[in-house]
């Protein structure tokens, strides 16, 4: 006979309860508080008590060119890096999708950029990008190409940061697509062989369509993280030169913890939050669509 006390009967509520309380206290309340602050003009440095001002902070933020530029840059950075990562990551996975000696070692190497501390990665790339002692300008000079200011030049800072993101995250797409390839059923390939399909037809008509759910989910998850990029940008440029590499996360960080303009910072956080939420809903929709 299975014993059924109070605890057992309510296990489905009691087991998750501590985790739920934790998430409510540390995530739901803070997000709610941020929403509330976005309707105030609170600033820690002004010394004035917090007062509710309705949409005033929203209007201030929306008429601030620095915010609009950061908003655009957030999308530029996200799409610039994620599209390249998607294509390159898939190509690498297709190239590696065979059995060969040392495949395990190669897979471990692919993991290294993903698990390496972003701040430290940023520092190493800053050494590469250094205009006077950096190895990249040295390579350009050997190739007789004009040298670049990389992250120290407002014109090249964003592409330079995107390159770092691509270096760090392409392997993740590769690893996910490799796992997806390993799980494909062999039947469609057998019938394609019977029908005499060539390699390119097999790739575009069978492999890629079957991989699409995996690739799309990986890409949107990646895009969500790219929208929130902070560590690499802050540690490499601090949002500079000038404001040339500020995205929403970096700008909101500065408003919160350097200027202490909490009201306006909260408005920016609400925008970032809503953008990320939209992308997250898209992932869940997609997964549900593929599950059916």
């Amino acid at each position, binding site marked *: 006979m299975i*014993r059924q006390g109070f*605890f*057992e009967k309510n*296990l*489905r509520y009691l*087991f*998750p309860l*501590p*985790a*739920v309380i*934790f*998430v409510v206290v*540390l*995530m739901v309340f803070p*997000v709610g508080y*941020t929403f509330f602050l976005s309707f105030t003009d609170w600033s820690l440095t002004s010394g004035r008590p917090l007062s509710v001002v309705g949409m005033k902070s929203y209007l201030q933020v929306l008429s601030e060119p620095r915010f609009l530029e950061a908003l655009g840059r957030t999308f530029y950075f996200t799409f610039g890096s994620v599209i390249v990562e998607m294509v390159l990551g898939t190509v690498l996975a297709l190239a590696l999708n065979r059995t060969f000696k040392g495949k395990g070692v*190669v*897979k471990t*190497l692919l*993991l*290294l*950029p993903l*698990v*390496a*501390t972003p*701040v*430290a*990665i940023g*520092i*190493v790339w800053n*050494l590469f990008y250094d205009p006077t*002692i950096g*190895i990249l300008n*040295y390579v350009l000079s050997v190739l007789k190409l004009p040298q670049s200011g990389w992250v120290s030049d407002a014109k090249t800072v964003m592409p330079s940061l995107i390159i770092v993101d691509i*270096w760090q995250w392409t*392997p*993740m797409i590769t*690893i*996910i697509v490799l*796992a*997806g390839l390993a*799980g494909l059923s062999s039947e469609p390939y057998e019938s394609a062989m019977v029908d005499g399909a060539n390699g390119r037809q097999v790739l575009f008509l069978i492999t890629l369509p079957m991989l699409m*759910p*995996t690739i799309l*989910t990986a890409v949107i*998850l990646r895009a969500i993280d790219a*929208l*929130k990029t*902070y*560590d690499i940008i*802050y540690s490499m440029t601090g949002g500079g030169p000038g404001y040339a590499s500020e995205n929403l*996360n970096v700008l909101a*960080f500065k408003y*919160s913890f350097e200027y202490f303009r*909490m009201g306006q910072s909260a408005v920016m*956080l609400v925008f*970032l*939050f809503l953008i*990320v939420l939209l992308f997250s809903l898209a992932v*869940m929709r997609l997964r549900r669509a593929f599950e059916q």
Partner: protein
Amino acid sequence: MKKNPVHSILFLLTLALIIIPILFPFVWMLMSSFKTQVDIISWPPKFIFTPVMQNYERVFIEQDFLHYMKNSLIVSVVSVFFSLVLGLPAAYSIARYKQKKLSIFILIARLMPGISFLMPWYIVFSRLRLMDSYIALILSHMLIALPLVVWVMSPYFDSVPRELEEAAMVDGLTQQSAFVKILLPLSGPGIVTATTLSFIFSWNNFMFSQVLSQQKTRTLPIAVYNFLSYVEVDWGAVMAAAVTIMAPAIILTMFFQKYVVKGLTMGAVKG
């Protein structure tokens, strides 16, 4: 299929084209950490040089990186531990009772931008005089680790046959002790995946610690970052610091390669 030598050579070339760009930054960082400042700023860049230990001496003796390393360890280990304590039962319940909404609710914490919680935390933790305390840091890092534990463990528990627990319950165990005594010991691989991933993400975290910690509880990423800004870019020492901070995560990954791959591919690949 027979082996075509031209194909093998092409494949080796492809491999080299993939591996060299991935590896080069790590190699260069490691090399630079053993170079003198003169060797680092020399033009053209030097590939052959006499290695020196002075950069590591600076990092560990002058800068007391052991202190920051200890902080990082405390924060990561304790936050991962408590995330397992909270996350494992939640993941079990999600798997057994198909609590989809609950799982989405907890996973949202993985997707939302950390900074939208960080600003309110800063205000509250300041009021509670918890700035620069381990408690504040550990709580914040738990919000990174807990969703990962649930993310990895609920599909894992789902894959363990229910009959095992039911048999134990017929033998007189309560459901909660069947979970602890039967299911958890069978879940080693899943727990290793969850622990490794959440440890690495907590270890690497920069933004939360940047705001919530000061001298006493400062973690390694902040120490490395500060080092960069107030040393008159002593590249060798900065590289030694970078090696120091990356080493644990990389060693863990090498040991637990399969588990890390599992954890990272989970969710995107149905299985």
